[in-house]
């Protein structure tokens, strides 16, 4: 053969060989063992707790139908929602994704998740709605289907600093029960120096400012009426934001801004609450972890956040949850389901959420993620062993019928941002509560209508 033809043949074989060998990386799979991947959102100690739980699962050597031992590889992935979206779109998703609950609705709407109903049906003796605190089970549902199961749930409550209460002449065991009391207490707990600068505050609505959408709920308002109608300008919501405006007016916007300059980052001893600058905060069940890490000697309490209506002892709280999902296109659904099932068994869940025993080695863990479980009934001893001194408060809050999950409307992501914006406009006195909420309503309702129109168009695919 002549040189140029030889070279052509050589190049062709390079191409073919390279093309043939360039395949997606395969996880180890032998007749005895199958490896699946799990992308987890947490990277810090919460991620470690999740990995430890997955290690327990791996040590249990659960087998799939073909008799292969399932090995789950848990990778901490930053920006997990972004990366999963790309991988799912490309048809190369991991087998399991650990998301936040608020991710799942939009992912479900995009068709990026595999519904779990058939799998739950198959294992209904182990996984059943009746075992879960209703709010958490409901949070997994969207448009009639189950898209995820809980990993660690959370609820929010009022945390208060008992030493500061005592110093201000308040009874440290009696937190405020109504919005009016909250205001009174806040006033007593606020201190200024001789130049009139704020050095301590009883309560500061923008601290930490993670749930600005929720203020209306503590006044009896709500953000939506079903999936098709937004109610941003509900009179009760307006009342709530008027209260916010009043609060800002009372303490001085500039003064509070200057005061806030001194706050350190959340996960540090300079956190506003941990450093004793703000006496009462709205925070989640995880706050106890950070108190333990940074200010173990602090005397603090927690209870339901005050609301301005009495609903026969059903306190208001906000449900929040980490969840575990199977993305659309996952290659090993049954094996992934085994992992999810394990995490949603009492032994797995307790190991993840609190102080519990490793069922394979008998060793105690160090408190896991330090949160509550989504179950109605924990096994005896769990609450007592748990590092959180007030876990019961959160369990009761989660069980309250006024524990609200983030609304499942299709524009939630934007809605939430818009409400934060409303808060800022009102807080800085750029707009009245009424104007800001009306503007939000008028901006987002048409957007929602548009999306609903498209959803209707795709109704058939949904089923």
């Amino acid at each position, binding site marked *: 053969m*002549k*040189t*140029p*033809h030889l*070279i*052509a043949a050589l*190049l062709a074989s*390079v*191409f073919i060989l*390279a*093309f043939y060998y*360039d*395949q*997606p*990386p395969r996880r180890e799979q032998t007749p005895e063992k199958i490896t699946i991947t799990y992308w987890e959102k947490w*990277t810090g*100690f919460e991620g*470690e707790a999740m*990995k430890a739980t997955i290690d327990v699962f791996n040590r249990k050597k659960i087998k799939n139908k073909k008799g292969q031992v399932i090995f789950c*590889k*848990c*990778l*901490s992935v*930053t*920006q997990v929602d972004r*990366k999963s979206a*790309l*991988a799912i*779109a*490309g*048809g*190369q*998703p991991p087998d399991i994704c650990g998301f936040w609950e608020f991710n799942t609705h939009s992912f479900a709407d995009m068709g990026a998740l595999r519904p779990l109903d058939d799998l739950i049906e198959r294992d209904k003796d182990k996984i059943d709605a009746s075992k879960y605190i209703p709010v958490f089970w409901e949070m997994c549902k969207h448009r009639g289907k189950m898209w995820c199961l809980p990993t660690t749930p959370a609820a929010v409550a009022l945390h208060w600093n008992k030493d500061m209460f005592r110093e201000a002449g308040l009874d440290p065991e009696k937190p405020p029960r109504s919005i009016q009391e909250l205001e009174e207490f806040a006033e007593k707990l606020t201190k200024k120096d001789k130049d009139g600068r704020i050095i301590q505050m009883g309560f500061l609505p923008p601290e930490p400012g993670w749930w600005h959408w929720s203020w209306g709920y503590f006044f009896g308002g709500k953000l939506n009426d079903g999936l098709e109608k937004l109610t941003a300008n509900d009179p009760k919501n307006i009342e709530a934001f008027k209260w916010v405006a009043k609060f800002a007016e009372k303490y001085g916007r500039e003064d509070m801004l200057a005061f806030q300059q001194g706050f350190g980052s959340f996960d540090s001893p300079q956190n506003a609450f941990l450093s004793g600058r703000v006496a009462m905060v709205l925070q989640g069940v995880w706050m106890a972890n950070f108190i*333990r*890490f940074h200010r*173990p*000697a602090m005397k603090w309490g927690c209870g339901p956040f005050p609301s301005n209506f009495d609903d026969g002892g059903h306190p208001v709280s906000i449900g929040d949850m980490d969840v575990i999902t199977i993305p659309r296109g996952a290659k090993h659904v049954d094996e992934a389901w085994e992992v999810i099932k394990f995490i949603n068994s009492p032994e797995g869940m307790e190991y993840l959420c609190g102080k519990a025993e490793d069922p394979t080695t008998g060793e105690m863990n*160090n408190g896991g993620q330090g949160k509550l479980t989504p179950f109605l009934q924990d096994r005896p001893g769990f609450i007592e062993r748990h590092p959180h001194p007030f876990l019961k408060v959160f369990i009761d809050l989660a069980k309250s019928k006024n524990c609200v999950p983030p609304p499942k409307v299709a524009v939630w992501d934007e809605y939430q941002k818009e409400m934060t914006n409303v808060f800022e406009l009102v807080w800085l006195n750029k707009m009245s509560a009424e104007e800001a909420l009306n503007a939000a309503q008028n901006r987002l309702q048409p957007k929602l209508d548009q999306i609903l129109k498209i959803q209707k168009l795709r109704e058939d695919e949904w089923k």
Partner: protein
Amino acid sequence: MPESKLSRWLSGRFSKRIGPKAPVEDAGGGYGNKVGGGNPVVHGALHVILLAAGSLFMLPLLWMTVTSLKPLSQTMQLPPTWIPRATLAVLGGEKLIVEKQKQLEKPHVIAVLKGGHDKGQRKLLEADVVKDGKAMVKYTLAGREEYEPEPVPVEIVKECPAGHWYVTQWQPEFSAEREKDQGEKKWDCVAESELSEVPHVFWSNYAGALERMRQKDDDPGFFSAGFMRCLLNTLWVCILSVIGVTVSCTLVAYSFSFLNFPGRDVLFALTLAVMMVPFPATMVPIFDVFRSLGWVGTFKPLWVPAWFGGAFYIFLLRQFFLGLPRDLLDAARIDGCTELEIIWHVIVPLARPALAMIALFQFLGCWKDFMGPLLYLTDRSQFTLSLGLQQFQSQQGGTPWHILMAASMMFSLPLIILFIIARKTFMQGIAMTGIKG
């Protein structure tokens, strides 16, 4: 044999470079006279301005180099220093390189714990924490620090007034696991006067970058994850796409230049037109194409298209080919050469500089590419260097700048070396890029 004779004859006759010329290296007389005139003062001033501008251009690169050779604590030093230095102190009777961790703002004490989880260890405590020989101390639990439930009895061994430095023994940057194996770092509190500084280059940052770019849950093995894995991936993609682009563009440009086929001119006009299409405009459907081919999660989207030509390179090569003497081709045809033989024996030797240029530019583009890998590579074991570096950066936030800079250096250096070796080809290529004007 006749064809090899022919090629020898050709290469003998046309070994001189054909094609647009590179910017003249050192114009000495001729060119320079054009604008500035021959005035030495003007020239001097121009050089001064150019050198000043040049140092501005070099500053970031220099800063990158210097940062990559510093220990961590020096990257956070104000005002910044241009010479990497090692701080020396005597720890446990030995003179060691240390890292300055912090200057004490309050009086502290070094105390030995007499109880608790870390019994027997030395701790640095704020002086006023110790009351009646007891203190609240922290211990480490699952990577986080927690306080002991009860005050722990302690024995004070050294008093450190405010202004002393808390220093730790310097250790090379390694992954978390390696660090664990190294055992406890030595540390102490010393007065400013006990510290001395000497210039010292921390090459170990580079070894650290190799190690730190891998994560705990990555597979073990030097080439299985981290920098080396990314390097192999990058090379794999680059080499394949360079071969592909050179081969395919030569064939296509040859066909455009010397062969007649129906629709040739329309096709060529289209080729020119698609250079205008911005990538975002076709990003979605291309992704969809690769997805339906099942190529997402493989390197294929990054190199296979190169084997099907590239508009700009085809255009450049065609321009170049058209400048070649036509009669050589005709002579070869009369000699009975097939088209492949003509390409191999006539075109390739003559067009070597142009081919080298497109190979070089493709390599460069491929090495630097970020969007492609970001779109198509899902598994960490497949990441290319640009994606791996970005991941490392976004995970670590902004702290280990010395390691980030070392990794960045290792990522950029091959291109810089390539440039220095093949500078003439580069300059020719740039001159050629301008042909279109």
